[in-house]
């Protein structure tokens, strides 16, 4: 089981075979999705009909196919997702930074309990986070509308409600990422700045914040990715401006075309790039 303890060749062969099967299992669904984005056939299935870029670029004016770049429904959904993700990233990184300072730098009564409360969103299923926000805010909007005739449209299923739903749990994750970095900060550096005559604000912006930069980048990339890919919370809160995951889900239920594979490929490449940013942030944080 460990290198210094010898094993029968049979055990090693089976173990090796298991590893191979596992990684094939891991790669196969994604590989197939990518391959069929380029298949010259109206269905994402075998047989292979030849290579085409139609599912990315085909203009419906020229033929029967609509490529991703001309699919207005998907493009606007993509725009919605990007908009939501930007807001979620901004809010959750700012909140995460404040929370990190609160839990790492200050001592106060009830801190342990509040820390556990901070972790709660991680152990609540995403669907429940979504419906609880729907019940609270849409109920509030209904109530206000009935009582005073004021319409609070931002509290009805819409992009703003989706942002609120996602911020509820992504903030916990960004807090954990930023707090982990802040924990390694040497407070003497800040004290030195203060001794040299800096005000606490100047010390924070010139000493502590630059130290946190890699974690902030990592948390931002992670928040953007989590927001962009979220489905379970989002589906409960979305209005008419559906984000991409919900739009894709609706299309998938109607039946699939290789355009969906093209979107999937685009999503994979975009998230891989973002993930690289996030992991580079982490690596810098470890250095």
């Amino acid at each position, binding site marked *: *089981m*460990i290198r*210094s*303890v010898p094993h029968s060749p049979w055990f090693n062969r089976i173990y090796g075979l298991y*590893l191979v099967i596992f990684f094939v299992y*891991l*790669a*196969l*669904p*994604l590989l197939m*999705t990518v391959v069929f984005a380029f298949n010259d056939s109206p269905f994402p*299935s*075998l047989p292979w009909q030849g290579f085409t870029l139609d599912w990315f670029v085909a203009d419906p004016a020229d033929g029967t196919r609509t490529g991703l770049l001309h699919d207005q429904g998907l493009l606007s959904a993509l725009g919605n997702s990007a908009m939501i993700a930007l807001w979620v990233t901004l809010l959750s990184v700012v*909140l995460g930074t*404040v929370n990190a*300072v*609160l839990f790492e730098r*200050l001592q*106060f009564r009830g801190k342990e309990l*509040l*820390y*556990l*409360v*901070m*972790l*709660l*969103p991680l*152990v609540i*299923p*995403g*669907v*429940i*986070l979504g*419906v*609880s*926000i729907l*019940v*609270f*805010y849409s*109920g509030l909007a209904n109530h206000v509308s009935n009582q005073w005739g004021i319409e609070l449209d931002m509290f009805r299923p819409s992009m703003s409600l989706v942002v609120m739903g996602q*911020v*509820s749990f992504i903030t916990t994750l960004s807090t*954990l990422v930023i707090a982990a970095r802040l924990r390694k900060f040497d407070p003497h550096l800040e004290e030195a700045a203060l001794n040299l005559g800096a005000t606490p604000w100047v010390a924070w912006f010139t000493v502590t914040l630059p130290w946190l930069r890699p974690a902030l980048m990592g948390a931002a990339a992670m928040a953007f*990715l989590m927001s962009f*890919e979220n*489905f*379970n919370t989002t589906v*409960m809160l979305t209005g008419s401006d559906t984000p991409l*995951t919900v739009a*894709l*889900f609706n299309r*998938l*239920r109607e039946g*699939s075309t290789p355009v969906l*594979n093209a979107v999937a490929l685009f*999503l*994979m490449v975009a*998230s*891989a790039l973002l*993930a690289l940013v996030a992991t580079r942030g982490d690596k810098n944080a470890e250095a």
Partner: protein
Amino acid sequence: MNKVHHQHARRLSLWLLLTPFVLWIGLLVLLPHLQMLRVSFQVRESWDSVTWGLDQYAHFFTEPYYWRTFLRTGLMSLLTMILTLVVAFPIAWYIARLARGRARGWLFLACLIPFWASELVRTYGWMILLRESGVFSALLQWFGFAPTEMLYNDVAVVVGLVYNGLLFMVVPLVTTLDGLDESLVEAGYDLGGGHFTVMREIVVPWAMPGIVSGCIVVFMLTLGSYLTPTLMGGKDSAWFTQQIFTQFITRFNWEQGAALGILLLLLSSLMIWLGLRLTGQSLRKVMG
């Protein structure tokens, strides 16, 4: 004078930092959940009046479709969690203890890559493989078999759910197994233990924080999953989240939906509490 001033500044900074935290957790997590709990006890009398009662919870217990789906979802989540652990453990062990140098980094990266794509993309990939017009069926036909539908059944759902949970199991396992002192394992063998004994007495107790953390996350993700069971399941593979969705979005019966939501939340909290309790771990150690 200076000391008083200093204390004053500290109090002020505490309140400044505490306010965003309280607003976030209060307005986006605690209040919505309390309201959901409240609504679940409301009984609609007519279009504009409500009373309090346990009607929604009574429906759950008297309507077999509800509690059967509830039970089914819980058991299948448990099964998924166990399968994920069994599948992931040898992989995590290999990455943490046997792979050398660069191979280690590459294998770990290979585990991460599928999770850069969203759950929707991963599920779609499995649909392309498993459905009747899919890749596996086409391969079987090539060998002379009839077209086979492998999608839309419980096995497909579990395959998809295990796939979705793997990363959340592999990462904590690799992290804890990484810190295992191999001389302990060697000592176990030197003292006459077999593979099984060493595994049970040394490796598993050591890896327990990782196992618990992975199991909790996978169980919770699976229990709360909506996408995979909906897209990969058949007519008989109902998932409890679908019923919550139906009550809220299709039937506008928020009271019933809220009660079902509370029940799901109770189940997941209970399982997490049991998991922590049975293994003597704390939430802070496992999650934070």
